[in-house]
């Protein structure tokens, strides 16, 4: 089976003034369609960097990134934006909701970018909020939500768009036990029933217990997986 995502000899060096920090040092990884995969590792091991490169949010210093047979590390800005819009969903660690939009509008935002009509996108977004137990907060703005509630809205935003792949950076980090488990169950359902591939970076043992595959990153290199 052809991998949905593949990276080859992937390197990423951050340069700040004259200081260089090597975040990834030649990572090779293949992610297959329908994978439910976690990238684990200590802080600073390069988990978030790898997620960014997998999703075309950043460009590698060296190496290759492939999405469904297409090399994406050489695409221009607009091509990458299109790729993200139609194929890849993100759940960011810091929620990253848009403050002037309500929870419902945030959840529907990617659909709006795709040009889905208002009634349809709000229906789909509301269903996603319902699955995450925050439908009653749909009209609230992010500053009226707790950290956990904001995280669920951010997850709903990624889920509502039903992309081919969802890349999630610590998606259960701010959720209580019950909501965290419900979210994991919902993502498993989407994985099985809707064919969405999930890639997490996580420390959460609840999530690590449920994934099919764990890739351990240590010092910017794949240790196991």
């Amino acid at each position: 089976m052809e991998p949905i995502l593949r990276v080859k000899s992937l390197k990423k060096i951050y340069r700040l003034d004259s200081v260089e920090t090597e975040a990834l040092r030649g990572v090779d990884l293949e992610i297959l369609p329908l994978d439910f995969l976690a990238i684990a590792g200590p802080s600073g091991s390069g988990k978030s960097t790898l997620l960014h490169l997998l999703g075309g949010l950043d460009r590698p210093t060296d190496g290759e990134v492939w999405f469904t047979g297409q090399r994406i590390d050489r695409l221009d800005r607009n091509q990458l934006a299109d790729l993200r819009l139609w194929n890849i969903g993100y759940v960011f660690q810091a929620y990253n909701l848009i403050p002037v939009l309500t929870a419902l509008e945030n959840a529907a935002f990617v659909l709006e970018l795709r040009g889905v009509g208002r009634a349809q996108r709000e229906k789909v977004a509301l269903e996603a909020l319902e699955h995450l137990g925050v439908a009653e907060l749909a009209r609230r703005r992010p500053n009226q939500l707790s950290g956990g509630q904001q995280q669920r809205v951010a997850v709903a935003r990624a889920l509502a768009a039903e992309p081919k792949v969802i890349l999630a950076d610590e998606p259960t980090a701010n959720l209580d036990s019950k909501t965290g488990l419900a979210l994991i169950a919902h993502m498993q359902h989407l994985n099985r029933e809707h064919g969405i591939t999930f890639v997490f970076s996580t420390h959460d043992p609840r999530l690590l217990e449920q994934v099919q595959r764990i890739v351990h990153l240590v010092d910017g290199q794949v240790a196991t997986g």
Partner: protein
Amino acid sequence: MFALSWRNIWRQRTRSIAAVIAVALAVLFAVIYFGLVGAVVTGLQSNLTESLGHLQVHVRGYRETREFREALIRIAAVAQRRLSAAVPAADVVPVLEVPALLSGEDRARGVLLAGLAQPAAIRERFADRYLAAGRLPVGDRAEEIALGGALARTLQVSLGGTVYAYAPGTDGLGAAAYTVVGLLHLPDPIVDARYAQLSLAGAQELAAPDAVSRFELHLPQSAAASGEAVLAPLRRDLARAMGAAFEVETWREVNPSLSALERIIRPWVMTFIAFFFVLAGLLVVNTIYLSLVERIREFGIITALGAGRGRVIRMVLLEGILLCVAGAAVGMTLGLLVVGSLAKGFSYPGELAEMQAQFGIPPVLYASIQPADIVITLVFVFATGILAALWPAWVASRLEPVEAMRFIP
């Protein structure tokens, strides 16, 4: 996207309100300026068409000829009948202008004697506006004359006094004595010092029996009557009816200086208006740019979620346009209220009023604004919104998502 842009511009309420007020003031000034220019142009047009007619008929080549006789329309009564038949709606005023020497007891001046046969309504309006004392010469009294006030002072004559006119080398008597029955106050001091008016019969008896220098065709006064849309076909029909020996001119052609003024005044006003909008635009740039700097993380998120460069640019441009449109709504409403109130009639104070009279502008003006003026103002509004937001939009579109999401303002 509209909701997002609209809410974004109100996040820093004070800053956005300042930008909206700046645009509103620019629009307000623009609308008032256009209204005042409309008042001056309309006033000038109505004054000129009132005193010189909407169309004039002359002998062909009259401008080039130096010989008084060659510029005359002979057997004027026949020509006047033809004109009246061709344009029944117009009042036809025959005019005979005679260059002459006018003398009092001790002093003499070169003048232009104008013999007129005006219909009663036009004559009354002329008297209301320019007669300072006495009355205008009556049609069948060839011996009566009205003098410009400055001319009367130069010749040292007053009402009831006698002046003597000499028009040598003409076809009439060539010399005659007249009784001063009226004193005029003409706004242009040069004209006031060189103008005398008598009846058409009086002028013809002096210089050219049965002849006139021109015919003036006065249409019922309206803004449309002064427009080329009405005058151009009339001019064509008249030219055809009168034949090749005559020249038909619109009031604009008779007064090329006014046409030049009309051509200049609009670009001149638009330069001023552009200046207002540049100032307002600077405030809009400031508002949009600061707003961009405060929201770099959000632009990172939006880009990360799949918004391309074009969409980010459109989003920021929309914010600029919305700020300007909000200002335009306020400014346009206030501006139209001011112009509406000035449309009932207004006068400039003191010396300004005297100055405007010298340029042939009536003392009472009526502000008017054309749909084209509103369209031009709105074009300025949209251009300001787009140009002010263009640079911030370009900056926003160049942000890299990961770097932008890490940005701490």
